[in-house]
């Protein structure tokens, strides 16, 4: 059978509480990250991602404490991201108990960060997150949570990140994020068919079929979603049962 396709709930954390943005704004509160993480783990989530969306220094300290609490309670792998600017941030979060770190803007600005993480801790801990928007037929990479456009293109940057030692690519389509009409399957397939490292689909899940399509059409190795899980629109157990019926290899 081989490796199962992974379902990954993503929890945005601010000041120790989870929140979820729609198209990166309009934050709504959704609970305690540790409790929510445990509930997802029980429901069959394969991994969890916690993103620190606090900007302040104080907030980042709170986040490291949250990571320690999560690691003490949760028995599946989890990735943390948000606000990682240098190797010292990576070190702090891995020592707090995270299995992987997700780097985004800092890596796009200083790609050497990926080499540093891979050399120091191994590729398996380094997830390179890419926010990109399709404009005039080109996928432009964005910085700062989708606020600042760059001239870097999705595929070219993803390949560079892989060559520098990233262990996975987490691709969020800004066009699809929050819209709930499915993942950016064409772009996903382009990434998955080109790269030799796993690709995580992000942005656009609204229905169970969207997950199936991310795997069958988008060739993704994992699919991430947030609000459909947080607000109970999709139950992870039901989702996995559905995917299994659709002949997708999932862990049940």
């Amino acid at each position: 059978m081989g490796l199962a396709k992974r379902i990954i709930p993503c929890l945005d954390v601010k000041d120790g509480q989870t929140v979820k943005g729609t198209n990166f704004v309009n934050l709504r509160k959704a609970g305690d990250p540790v409790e929510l993480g445990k509930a997802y783990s029980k429901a069959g989530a394969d991994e969890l991602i916690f993103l620190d969306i606090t900007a302040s220094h104080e907030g980042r300290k709170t986040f490291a404490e949250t990571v320690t609490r999560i690691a003490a309670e949760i028995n599946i792998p989890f990735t943390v991201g948000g606000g990682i600017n240098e190797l010292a941030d990576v070190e702090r979060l891995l020592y707090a108990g995270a299995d992987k770190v997700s780097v985004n803007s800092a890596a796009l600005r200083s790609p050497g960060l990926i080499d540093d993480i891979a050399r120091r801790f191994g590729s398996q801990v380094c997830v390179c997150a890419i926010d990109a928007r399709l404009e005039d037929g080109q996928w432009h990479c964005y910085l700062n949570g989708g606020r600042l456009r760059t001239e870097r293109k999705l595929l070219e940057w993803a390949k560079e990140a892989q060559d520098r030692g990233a262990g996975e690519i987490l691709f969020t389509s800004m066009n699809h994020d929050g819209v709930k009409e499915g993942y950016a399957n064409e772009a996903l397939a382009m990434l998955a068919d080109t790269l030799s490292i796993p690709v995580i689909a992000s942005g656009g899940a609204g229905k169970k079929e969207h997950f199936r399509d991310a795997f069958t059409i988008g060739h993704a190795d994992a699919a991430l979603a947030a609000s459909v899980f947080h607000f109970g629109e999709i139950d992870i157990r039901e989702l996995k049962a559905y995917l299994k019926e659709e002949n997708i290899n999932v862990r049940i």
Partner: protein
Amino acid sequence: MNVAIVKYNAGNIKSVDNTLRRFGIAPVLTDNAELLAKADRVLFPGQGEASGAMRYLKERRLDEVIRNLRQPVLGICIGQQLMCRHSDEGGGTDCLGIFDADVIRFAPRKHEDKVPAMGWNSLHGLASPLFAGISDGEFAYFVHSYYAPVCESTIATTEHIVSYSAALNKDNFYATQFHPEKSGSTGEKILKNFLEL
């Protein structure tokens, strides 16, 4: 119960430590031969690169200490690989030689064959009390680029590109390529089984 975790340079012990604490066990992290020898159980977890890890173990004579342990010992991930005879990693490294297997790198055959193998894979051919109460096909979490082929010590297999050893056992030595401490309730059950061997 007195559980010791081998302290060395590839030890990513945080999650193993957390799991044991959830069981009500406070493990001791040590490279002291005496403490290791007198523990009820010894865990040899890790994540990293084989040649550097072997060098570190040999410099401190931990290779002999581990080989001479008499209580149940559980190697995890790189721990399993280090307990084999040889690893191709780092240009080729002689390992502890507990299991009669040579660790080799995955050779992708097609584009979908990704290396490292990262994620959940199913366990088959379960043949040890380590897997009491675990059903064929249950999933465990793997992250690795090198693997031990199926050999006479194999007590579980999984498949990625080829079928290979997901777990090994010889005498008092047990090892899993997967991370039981990250494998949800299946993994916790396996760790509990190890503590009850």
